[in-house]
């Protein structure tokens, strides 16, 4: 089967006034359908750049990116993108916020609308449709943002540290909700995070990047047992701590060498 994400020799340079710097160099990667892949690495390793490239928001200087076999030319509704914060539009109601993607892609049918209402209810947001973002808590708002992203039914979901701005407890709950929802829908996901235990708990593969320039340093396979357990409980499984330490040590090395 065709991989959902395919990067071939992707290189990206940032051009500034003072210098041109290499954010990513010759990076190749494949993500299979239904996989949950995490990108971790020291700051400045090009994680977020990589995500923007897959989303079609940035055009790589060199190399090819395809999603489901199609070359990426720009953003498409097939790829959902979730940001660090909810960035809901304060002047729109919750439902109108959730419908934004459908509106923009011209797919706002009565059926799609109903699906979105149901999806909001699934996320525990029933009855909040007419509220405004300012009336909701941070965790609820991020769930609305998730619904907004899923409403267009993307085959691939890109998550850019979507839990980092939340309280610890809310963060754990949301990790569970997201990983469970994606598993049920069979959505492929790529997560950027700086939280190593989150990366191990939710994903099937953790990809460690190194910086200067950004490259894949090492790929860690998460054992089946941890993979199939909800993130909150996965953290207590045997094997989890060992993998965490292994990843942590490698990340330390990557951080030191990149300086």
């Amino acid at each position: 089967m065709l991989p959902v994400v395919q990067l071939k020799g992707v290189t990206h340079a940032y051009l500034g006034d003072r210098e041109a710097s290499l954010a990513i160099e010759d990076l190749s990667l494949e993500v299979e359908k239904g996989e949950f892949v995490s990108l971790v690495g020291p700051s400045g390793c090009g994680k977020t750049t990589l995500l923007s490239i897959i989303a079609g928001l940035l055009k790589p200087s060199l190399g090819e990116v395809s999603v489901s076999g199609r070359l990426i030319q720009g953003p498409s509704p097939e790829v959902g993108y979730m940001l660090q914060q909810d960035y809901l539009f304060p002047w729109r109601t919750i439902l109108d916020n959730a419908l934004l993607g459908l509106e923009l892609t011209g797919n706002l049918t009565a059926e799609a609308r109903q699906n979105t209402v149901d999806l909001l209810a699934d996320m525990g947001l029933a009855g909040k449709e007419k509220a405004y973002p300012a009336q909701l808590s941070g965790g609820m708002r991020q769930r609305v943002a998730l619904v907004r992203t899923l409403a267009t039914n993307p085959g691939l979901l890109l998550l850019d540290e979507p839990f980092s701005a939340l309280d610890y407890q809310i963060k754990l709950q949301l990790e569970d909700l997201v990983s469970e929802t994606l598993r049920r829908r069979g959505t492929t996901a790529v997560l950027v995070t700086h939280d190593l235990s989150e990366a191990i708990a939710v994903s099937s593969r953790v990809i460690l990047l190194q910086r200067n320039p950004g490259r894949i340093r090492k790929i860690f396979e998460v054992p089946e047992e941890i993979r199939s357990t909800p993130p909150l409980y996965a953290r207590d499984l045997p094997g989890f701590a060992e993998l965490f330490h292994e990843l942590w040590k490698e990340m330390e090395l990557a951080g030191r060498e990149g300086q």
Partner: protein
Amino acid sequence: MSRNGLNEMPNSRAEWLQQKHQDFKKQKRRWSSRVMAVRASLLVLFFFFWEAGVRLGWIDELLFSYPTKVLRQIWSDMASGSLWPHLGMTVGETAVGFVLGTLLGTLLAVIIWWSPFLSAVLDPYMVVFNSMPKVALGPIFIVMFGAGFTAIVITTLSITVIITTLVVYNSFCSVDPNLIKVVRSFGASRVQEFNKVILPASFPAIVSTLKVNVGMSWVGVIVGEFLVAKSGLGYLIIYGFQVFNFTLVMSSLLIIAAVATAMYQLVVYVEKLLLSRL
């Protein structure tokens, strides 16, 4: 009353809370009535000393006139109907200048937002034009458009348009880039980006330029009328000055103050209405 005491008597706790709330409201009412009282007495005192000063000979009557005479003048002008054409003219010019200025300024802001290249090209010209005293262009407008309504409205526009453009364009640029990223990630076009994010996000800023523009429009219109007009409140001031009828000047000033305030309050009301709909 102690905490324990309150817990033992839930009924009296509610009463106590209500009592506190009543006290709080009473205090607030007292404060605002004090403000109102001092405010009103300032106004009364001002008119009183003006009147008394003139009558006692401390202030020159010829230069400053006095309140009862000014009010009599306004009343007789209103009764004879000679005030209305002047008032209508000035209000008409101000309203047209205000509406056109806001619309054109916003439109210009949209155009330069649309084309960052154009924005970069025009930037120094806008800065120069904005810092220049536009009133100085008055004579040119009179030559171009003839002494009358058009020249006055153009003078007003020269004052309002560029500042509106700058303020609105700035608010377009200060929209959170992440909101734009959200719509871009759905593949939004530039038109959609504008309609769905830029415009609604800067709507409050656009509405608040309305308030600034009301004041600006009055400046433009009165100055325009000083320069050219044969009617209007600005004309009455200049005319009163030329024939040394300062009662006419003062009464025109008083009317301008009243009408400009009314217009400002109307805009504030419209602003509230528009923003509450968001």
